[in-house]
Structures are given as structure tokens and as C-alpha cells.
């Protein structure tokens, strides 16, 4: 047990005893709670330990995964991209625990590399930027199936990866800031709604 967690427990105990004297309820007052909440969040937070070691994808595949995630949500003037947001780590972690994802995403990356080999004589990351765009433009839209049904595995793969990359990006610190979510805090009063623009 680390000294840190003991101190938190002590803090919470002292808060609980101090302010609820006269009450038998296990509650802590809001001012103290604000402090305690921050401490808890800090202690429960994931401790980043430098370089992430992929749990499912091979080192090469993991690089491809990163390239794809970043292509889905790239950095721009408003924010960093999917790699900075930790999306590849998130996707790899979930895939390592989910046989269905292993099939769809693991198999999907293999499909992508084979297809690139057939078309461009190089795996996806070995392709030129123009070639990469060409193949992504094919797998990123279901309507392309009409012209070429053989794209189906790539389209299914990309659709799942796009959803998971969105999860990874928009649940990150930079993704949440990019969306403009304001909250997860302590308010004395809830202000309600600013004027709603006309439809």
C-alpha cells in the first residue's frame, strides 16, 4: 500500500468525521469533496510508462495501425491527431482481449497489405502517399462495393477501425477539448441553457 493511498484514505476519513458530526450519513460536504475528487481522479489516473508495447499486433502491423488511425483522424490546425490521442494503444488493447476484433482487425490489416501487394507491389506502408489515398478511398465508402464486391473485407475492416478510432480520439484529452465538452466539475448552481439558435 503506497503512502499516497493511505494519505487519501486519511483525508477522506477526516473529512467524513469532521463535517458530518451530528449526521450519521456517509457523506462529505461539497467543498471537501471537490478536493477529494481531484485527488481520487489523480490517483486513479493511468500512469503512462513511456513507450507502449503492443499486446496484439506485431510491431510492423502496429505501425500500420498507427498510420491508418492517423489517416482517419489526422492532426490539423485545431488539434493533434489520433496517434497523439492514444487511439492505436486503445485499439490494440481492446483487440488483444476480443477474438472477434482479432479476426476483423488483425485479418483486416493482412487483407490491406495483400491487396496493396497485388495492386502496387508493396505493403500498405510501403506504398506512396497517392497509392495509400487510392486504396483508402476504396475501403472508406460502402458504395464502392457496387463496382467491386471484392472490397467487402476491406470495407468491413475500415468501418470497424473508424468507429474504434473515433472512440480513441474523442475520449482522449485532446479529443474532448476539440469537441468543446465543458463539464465533469463541481457547480454550486446549474446555469441551464444559453439561447438556442433557430433551426
Amino acid at each position: 500500500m503506497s503512502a499516497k493511498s493511505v494519505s487519501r484514505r486519511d483525508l477522506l476519513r477526516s473529512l467524513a468525521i469532521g463535517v458530518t458530526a451530528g449526521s450519521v450519513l456517509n457523506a462529505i460536504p461539497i467543498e471537501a469533496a471537490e478536493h477529494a475528487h481531484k485527488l481520487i481522479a489523480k490517483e486513479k489516473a493511468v500512469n503512462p510508462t513511456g513507450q507502449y508495447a503492443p499486446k496484439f499486433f506485431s510491431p510492423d502491423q502496429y505501425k500500420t495501425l498507427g498510420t491508418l488511425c492517423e489517416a482517419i483522424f489526422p492532426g490539423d490546425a485545431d488539434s493533434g491527431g489520433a496517434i497523439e490521442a492514444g487511439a492505436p494503444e486503445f485499439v490494440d488493447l481492446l483487440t488483444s482481449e476480443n477474438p472477434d476484433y482479432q479476426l476483423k482487425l488483425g485479418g483486416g490489416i493482412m487483407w490491406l497489405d495483400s491487396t496493396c501487394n497485388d495492386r502496387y507491389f508493396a505493403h500498405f506502408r510501403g506504398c506512396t502517399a497517392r497509392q495509400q489515398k487510392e486504396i483508402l478511398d476504396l475501403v472508406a465508402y460502402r458504395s464502392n462495393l457496387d463496382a467491386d464486391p471484392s472490397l467487402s473485407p476491406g470495407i468491413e475492416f475500415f468501418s470497424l477501425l473508424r468507429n474504434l478510432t473515433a472512440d480513441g480520439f474523442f475520449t482522449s484529452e485532446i479529443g474532448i477539448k476539440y469537441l468543446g465538452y465543458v463539464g465533469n466539475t463541481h457547480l454550486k448552481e446549474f446555469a441551464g441553457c444559453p439561447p438556442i439558435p433557430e433551426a
Partner: protein
Amino acid sequence: MAQVIRSPRVYDVCIIGSGAAGGTAAKILTEGGLHVVMLEAGPPLNPAEDYKEHLWPFDLPHRGADVGGRARHELNDEFLAPNGFWEITGEPYTSAPGSRFWWFRSRIVGGRTNHWGRIALRYAPVDFKAHSHDGMGDDWPISYDDLAPYYDKVESYIGVFGTKENIPSAPDGIFMPPPVPRCTDRIVKNACDKIGVTCIPARMAILTKPLNGRPACHYCGQCGRGCVTASNFSSSQVMIPPAQATGRFTLITNAMAREVMVGKGGKAEAVSYIDKSTRTERRIHARAFLLAASACESARLLLNSRSTVFPDGLANSSGVVGRYLTDSVGTSGAGYFPNLEKMPAHNHDGVGEMHMYIPWWKYDRKNDFQRGYHIEFGGGRGMPSVGGFDRVCEEEEGYGVSLKKKCRSRYGTTIGMSGRGEMIPNPDCYCDIDPQTVDQWGIPVLRFHWKWGENEIKMASDMQDTMRAVVEAAGGTFFSRSRNDPAHPHGIADGGVIIHEIGTARMGSDAKTSVLNGYCQAHDIKNLFAADGACFVTNADKNPTLTIMALSWRASEYILEEARKGNL
């Protein structure tokens, strides 16, 4: 044969389960002077350690998607307060062929009050006399007037916000002021006003003013994660502590009740339970027993308590234990509101769950179905979460900066709606003991049988129509998955999914057709009570928790009175 360890003492009352019913009974009985022991099948709860309140998704490695991303595909929530489960390893249940039933169980002090939506609605007078009104189902042996004083007591003690509205189908209570509307509430309210649908402030067990040492809500919108300030109601934080403060309360955790044992006089005399931490069987002796393990778990305990006196299970001479199982009729839809794309960034969190709702408003006319429903709604600029961008990604497709911007402009533009309506009991919906399956403690498990009736399907259809009408009146685009799924007509959820399963040991004035009397006391055994959802006769469109607490409070006062008379 394992040695059975007997408890050295006889308690006044043994309560099985620590949730809404058990917690309420523990408080009332101990404060009334009785010595109470409580069995809880899960571990103790330490809010400061166990709650994920105020964490960000990026504080968790799975970001809220849970192990393997299962929160994306199943009814799970990684942020939820601890130990509320759809599946419990080693403690299965089964569904009969052709039936699909889901059973949410909590294994933690406070039970499902740690996880519930805090919606606190009173049953209306007509809900107790539904059979007299429309000829379907049965009446309760008690009336609204019998329970009203206990609704008052519960609301005054736990704290419920709301407004006086004088709506016959949604009786007013003792209310704190409601929080101001969110943007999404204003949009729905305006639309409802246009098309003649009633929309009023919600009634929620969340404090908007301090009460009994509990501070008011701090509007983080995370009630389901558990509240460190106990500003919302949970049994673990609001009912159990006062019981403990009396010095007459013993709480035994990780104690899985197996059987209620009957003595020579035909009275219940002990509960046999498994101490999960040592895997040993133990017994607790008491003068009276109050089942509060949840409707189905209490029914399971009764059905598993077989003896020569009660060959079909305890208190089951009527044969109706496990019968009359109902859940709420539930179906969902949502609207996309383009004008919300232009909303400035602002704090939209509010209280956990809804600020306003649509109570049953068509009680004054003839409908295509019997009984009623209400509609819950919410959405807008909440904390971003996994799965929240699936829809825009699937609709827009593509990739790159343009998709990223589309996601940003679509964020917070959806309002989700859920209908919650009354199911009328039918003979196809019940639970019994699966003769072939035991759990890891050796206790035979429940088997569920389920089939929605025609009335419920028609009601779900009407819910979809209402939700669509409200969304369209508000200038939104309605979407619902209800049409694509033949297994779920009009999107009706599988039995149990709404987590309002009740009725498995219903009360009634006739001992041949009911298990309990109006005080939740078994007709067959006077020192046995069941005060959880098992005792309900109807499953009105009111989330049952508030009524469970009122019934348990009333049953507990009756037990105190019987104890004073020396009848325990």
C-alpha cells in the same frame, strides 16, 4: 458433509438484501428498537475507493469501453458504480427455449440502489385498482391512501425533486425544487407544448438542497457512477448508516442466502447461507425474516426453501411464487437536431439523468391499448463516450479532417428518448427453478419464461409514434432501429432489460391467489415478509424503487407494531 456453523444468538429480524427494501427496513426496524441482522450477497462498499465519479475516459485504459470493448456491444458501462452485473461468473440463470430474459443483479452493499436511475415516481390511485378500472390483471389489497403517508416519509427522508402538477396519473409528492432545464429539455418541452403532450420537471431522488448532512448536488451528471457526496439516494449511503448508528445492526457481507428453514411450529426460524469468503454454510436465527433480495432472487429463495410442510417452496401454498413476473415495456428512439450544431460550448451536465420527462398524459381518452407509459429523454453535450460517434461515422463514412469536423459539428445534437410503460401480467411470463442447473454455491438457479402480450406490443408502437411526433415537432430528424428487428416489434426490449422486474410473490387479499397480505407478510407463515419488488401486483409506468421503499417502510412499521404486541 460440510459442518454447518450455527450462530450463537437469535436476532429479532433477519433481512436478506441491502437495497431499497432491505435498507429501508434496516433503518426503520433498528430505530424502532429491534436487533437486526442483514445478509448481503456481495462485498462492502467504500464510496471513496470504489466510485469512478469524476474520472475522465482517458483516465481508464479502456476509456469506458471495458475489457475487449464489451461496453460497445453489451449492456455494460465501465463507469457504473461497482458490482452491478448482467452476468455473474459462477451464478448463472437460464431462459426457457423461446424466451429471452435479462436479469441485472447487484452484489454489493446497497444493491441496485447504487446503479438505478434515481427516478422516483409515485404510483397513482388508479394503479392500485387497475382491475376495477379496466378488468385486466388484479387490484392491490391496499390503496393509494394506505401508501401515501409512506411516500411522504420516504420522499422527506431521501430527498426528491419535482413540481406540483395535479396530474391524476402522476401524483405529486414532497418535493425539493427541480434543477433548471438543459437545452435538450427546452427543445422537447417546446415541442410537447406545440402538440399537446404533457412535459414536466422530472421527479428524481437527487438533492437540490442539503438534507440531513448530505450536501446538494454538484451537477456533474454522473449519478450512475455513485456519488461520493451522497447527494443522490443510495441505500448504502442513506439507509444503512443510520441503522448502523443505532448499535442494533449487524451486517454480514458476502453472504448468499440458500434457504429459509422452518421450525416445528411452522414458523421460519433460520436462514441458511453460504459465506462466500470461506465457502462454508452458516445459519442465522431470528424471530422474523424479511426478504429484500430483489423480486426474482427472493422468489428463488422461497422456491428453494422446500420442506415436508412446504413441498412446493416456502409460502407457496397458492403456487404463485415466481408467477406474475413483469418488467416495464421499453422502446427507444432518438432525434437529430441540426440547430444544436450551433450551440456554443457550455456546461450541460446537470444532475445524473433527466431534468424533465413526459408523464402519462393520455389517461383521459380511449387508446389502442390498456394502461399507460411515460417517456424519459436526454442527450446533448454530455461527456464524450465510446460508441458515441458510431452513427456519424457510419453515415458520413470517409476519413480525414472533413470527417473529424463532421464529428465535432454533430457532437451533442442528439436527444434520445425511451418509453417506459405498464405490462399486464400474463401466464407466459414467470420464473421457476431450473431442475438441471446449480450455481457455484450449489444453489439451484432460476429459469425464466417470457413472452410479451399484444397489449405491450401495441403500447410500444404508440411510444414510437409519440417519440417521432415530439422529435419532428421540435424540428428534428427521428431515427429508431425499431423497424429492422422482427424479434423486437416496435423496438420492444427483451424482458428484464428495463430492470423493473417485479411481481413474483404478489400481495393480495386471497391466500389462494397471492403470497403476501397488504403488509408484505406471507399468508402461510406469519413471521416471513417480502418487501422488495416481489410483492407488487401491478407494474405501473412508474419506476418501482420509490414504491418499494414506501412498501418496505410500511411493512417495517407493521413489524414493529407486531413486535410490541409480542406477536413476533
